[in-house]
């Protein structure tokens, strides 16, 4: 097992398409993020891959299975498996989303947004605290892309995200692409969103590509990062300073070299823009 010092620079989301290449070529990537739900409770090659990569690179765990906003009880089976994986593989960071993914034993495996209300903020914050206590680690909470808004919301998404992080005393994984996508879909100002984020809680950035569906943007992680997302990333670095940054690509996964090129662009921005950070 390699040492678990804090990570920096630009990591890449590890996908099955690149397992063999990464093991063979050992590319110079400072860290990888694994979608931990794909490995929990499984043996064989799946577990072997996780073991191998944990010995080669610092890893971060990223999941959707906590369903932190759901009104179901926290899933003990999932948390047990996650806790076991954390103890075994010692990830540098553990993250999940500010959303819910199912209710009453039906799972949609999608990131469903919360209504932005006082009740919802306390509900999800209480569950984050329970999860953190159970796992024995502070988690990073990621803002999600959304395509709908509830009438009962009485605060903005940015206010809600910041409020929940404070209530739950958790870290923040700021997904720049998600901010841009939601800002387009709901006609809000992405820079104003950034201005409301709790700087000291931000531990990581995510970057990905969206799909333009004419009247809305869809967060598909299936294309290169778009120019306005790069611009927003620059704004974020100027505002918050450098943080570990991840390139995500889940659909139409290209050659690893394409991800490295995206990572190179992000590295350049981290180097150039962080000098402006307050």
């Amino acid at each position, binding site marked *: 097992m390699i040492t678990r010092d804090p990570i920096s620079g630009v990591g890449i989301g590890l996908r099955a398409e690149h397992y063999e290449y990464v093991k063979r070529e050992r590319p110079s990537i400072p860290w990888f993020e694994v979608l931990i739900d794909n490995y929990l*409770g499984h*043996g064989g090659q799946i577990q072997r891959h996780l073991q191998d990569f944990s010995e080669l690179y610092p890893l971060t765990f990223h999941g959707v299975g906590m369903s932190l906003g759901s009104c179901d009880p926290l899933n003990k089976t999932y948390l047990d498996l996650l806790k076991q994986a954390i103890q075994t593989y010692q990830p540098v960071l553990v993250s999940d989303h500010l959303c819910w993914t199912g209710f009453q*034993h*039906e799972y*949609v495996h*999608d990131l469903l947004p919360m209504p932005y209300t006082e009740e919802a903020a306390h509900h999800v914050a209480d569950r984050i605290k329970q999860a953190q206590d159970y796992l024995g680690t502070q988690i990073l909470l990621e803002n999600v892309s959304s395509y709908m*808004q*509830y009438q*009962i919301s009485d605060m903005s998404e940015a206010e809600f995200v910041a409020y929940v992080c404070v209530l739950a005393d958790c870290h923040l994984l700021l997904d720049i692409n998600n901010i841009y996508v939601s800002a387009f879909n*709901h006609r809000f100002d992405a820079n104003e969103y950034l201005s409301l984020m709790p700087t000291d809680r931000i531990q990581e950035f995510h970057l990905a590509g969206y799909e333009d569906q004419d009247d809305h943007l869809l967060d598909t992680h299936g294309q290169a990062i778009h120019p306005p997302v790069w611009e927003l990333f620059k704004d974020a670095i100027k505002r918050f300073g450098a943080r570990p940054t991840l390139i995500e690509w889940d659909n139409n996964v290209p050659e690893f070299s394409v991800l490295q090129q995206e990572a190179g662009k992000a590295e350049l921005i981290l180097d150039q823009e962080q000098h402006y950070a307050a």
Partner: protein
Amino acid sequence: MLPELQKQFMNGLLRKDALILKQLDSQIRDSQQQLNIYRNSYRGGLLKAMKDIYPVTEQLLGETFFEAMCLRYIEQTPCQSFDINQYGANFSKFTDAFSPVKALIYLPDVIRLEWAWHHAYQATEPPEHDFSPLLNFDETQLASLYFSLQPSMTLLASPYPVDLIWSANQITEGESVNLDAGPHHLVIWRTGLNSHIDTVDLEFFNFLIFIQNHHTLGVIQENDPQFEEHLAIGLQRGYFSHYHF
């Protein structure tokens, strides 16, 4: 309020209930359109999972038909596990009753075989068990023992040579398979990192079914004239994960 909202949303997403639409803010986008974006994403995610699990079935049916059939299945079958890898487990039962594919009499068993392969690939390994103490047991002790099959293992009996159909459709459309080749009895399982499909004879298959159904070795011996031979084969191949009294 929050539980009711989530209940309404799930009913809207999975069962096309319209109640949730009144809860959505439609100033920018129509409520139904907002819900449809999530419906499409939900269906697309599960469809992708099924395409990963059932590539041979997709090859046999063609992409368009397979996807339409999967979407019908998805409409009827909400995902009930946090682990998306568990989705599609009863696709074969759905296919049994899906009249448009009735003519493909072997299809449900091909689907069972693909699910068994998927299960074997991801099953957890039990710790290695020491069977050597069996040599010191007397007949009475042996008769009261139970064996367990490897957790990765599925026993599949089919009237059709589904393993040959599976092999012939691994990458591109393969050679034709004689459906009159007779019933095939299959053991789908994994050792280490390698998954296998073993063809076994009916008698040995029935022996494994006895083991799977948690009968003692004594009961199995009374019903299987080739008991000792079968037990030796099972032990030699590593089909058993452990034994207990």
